């Protein structure tokens, strides 16, 4: 059984009210999901609060998982990231500053591009590495840290419309790369 199949199986059993499957799902996935919460919130207590809510949702909503079209880890990660980002926005946490020097549009691709052997790089990672380093950084900040356009504008001192234009261009480039 692949890890994905294992998690899928556990979710299916949780949907039937199987508590031991729920506990195994928790043991199997909580460290990754807690990492997601911590990355967005930067605060253990807040992150644990969100993680707890996530697993309550998983227990209550596991029966709707099958019909939503997501792979099992993506479903769990999406719930977790969205909860953590909602929490971050409710708390109005200030964004971590980004150095302006890192944002020059002609920055070269980052060291990741050369470090990762092309053969085992994931497609999305390879495509992010094709973006100028600063642009890839902004995309990761939006996704991994949950920064909004306003956060990124505050973090960089760049005006919001410009930030949005940069992000949208990066996303389009990413999308074109992904469909190659």
């Amino acid at each position, binding site marked *: 059984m692949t890890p994905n199949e294992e998690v899928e199986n556990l979710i299916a059993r949780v949907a039937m009210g199987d*508590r031991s499957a*729920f*506990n195994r799902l*928790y043991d199997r996935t*909580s*460290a*990754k999901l*807690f*990492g*997601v919460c*911590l*990355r967005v919130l930067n605060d*253990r207590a807040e*992150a*644990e609060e969100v*993680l*707890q809510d996530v*697993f*309550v949702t998983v*227990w209550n909503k596991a029966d709707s998982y099958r019909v939503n*079209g*997501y*792979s099992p*880890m*993506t479903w769990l*990660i*999406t719930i977790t*990231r*969205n909860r953590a*980002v909602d929490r971050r926005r409710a708390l109005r946490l200030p964004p971590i500053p980004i150095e302006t020097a890192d944002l020059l549009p002609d920055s070269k691709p980052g060291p990741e591009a050369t470090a990762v052997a092309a053969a085992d790089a*994931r*497609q*999305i*990672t390879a495509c*992010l590495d094709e973006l100028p380093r600063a642009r890839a950084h902004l995309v*990761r900040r*939006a*996704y*991994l840290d*949950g920064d*909004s*356009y306003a956060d990124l504008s505050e973090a960089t001192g760049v005006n919001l419309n410009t930030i*949005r*234009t940069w*992000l*949208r*261009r990066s*996303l*389009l480039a*990413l*999308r074109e790369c*992904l469909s190659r």
Partner: protein
Amino acid sequence: MSDQTTPPIDPEDDDDRVLAAEYTLGLLPDTERTAFEARMASDADLRAEVIAWHEQFATVILDEVDEVAPSAQVAKRLQTRLFKPEKRSFWQQIWPYGLGGVAAALALWLAVSSGLITPEEDALRADLVAELAPTPDGEGLVIRADVDTSRGAVQVIRAAGTPPEGRVFELWLIAGDAAPVSLGLLRDDTSTIIDLPQEVLALMPGAVLAVSDEPPGGSPTGAPTGAVRAAGQLTSS
């Protein structure tokens, strides 16, 4: 000749694939997000695009976000929250009403006979009565309700106990499996008389009266929102 009023169109503008990515990242402003969700509801391609972005980005999390073990407290709190609910349901709260009834009646009788409470002269001619036994949340409450069906009113006598600071007591009628019906708020003093409409009177024999604490002005939802503090069954007197 170019039209000076039209801003230049960037290739990423009006591109649903970009919108879907922004939606996935939670970057869309509220109005754009709502509009996008409305379109997504009827557009399977758009939904597929969003799912594809979620899958791609989730991969980044799998690869780049480190695992961190949460404290053991989280698992413990989850077990309690999901599998050992401390907060009992409304129905569970009122279930043991019969047990404390005798004690409540005795306390009320003591209160009345020792002069703590003087029943009003124009007291109702009660044909249905209920001793409202305190729930675990209502320790110290002694409440009795007398219903005069011919006059169409209930008199609630609160012999002991007060609502929590900043809360009021609300009286509910629960007939069979039906949802609780609010009969009104209890006044600050020990006795409250509430007039009852005919359709409510018809439900009363054998029904349960319950008292919950609610925000000033009563339950904002029409159903009990606070803890049930006392409950008892109406029986013929």
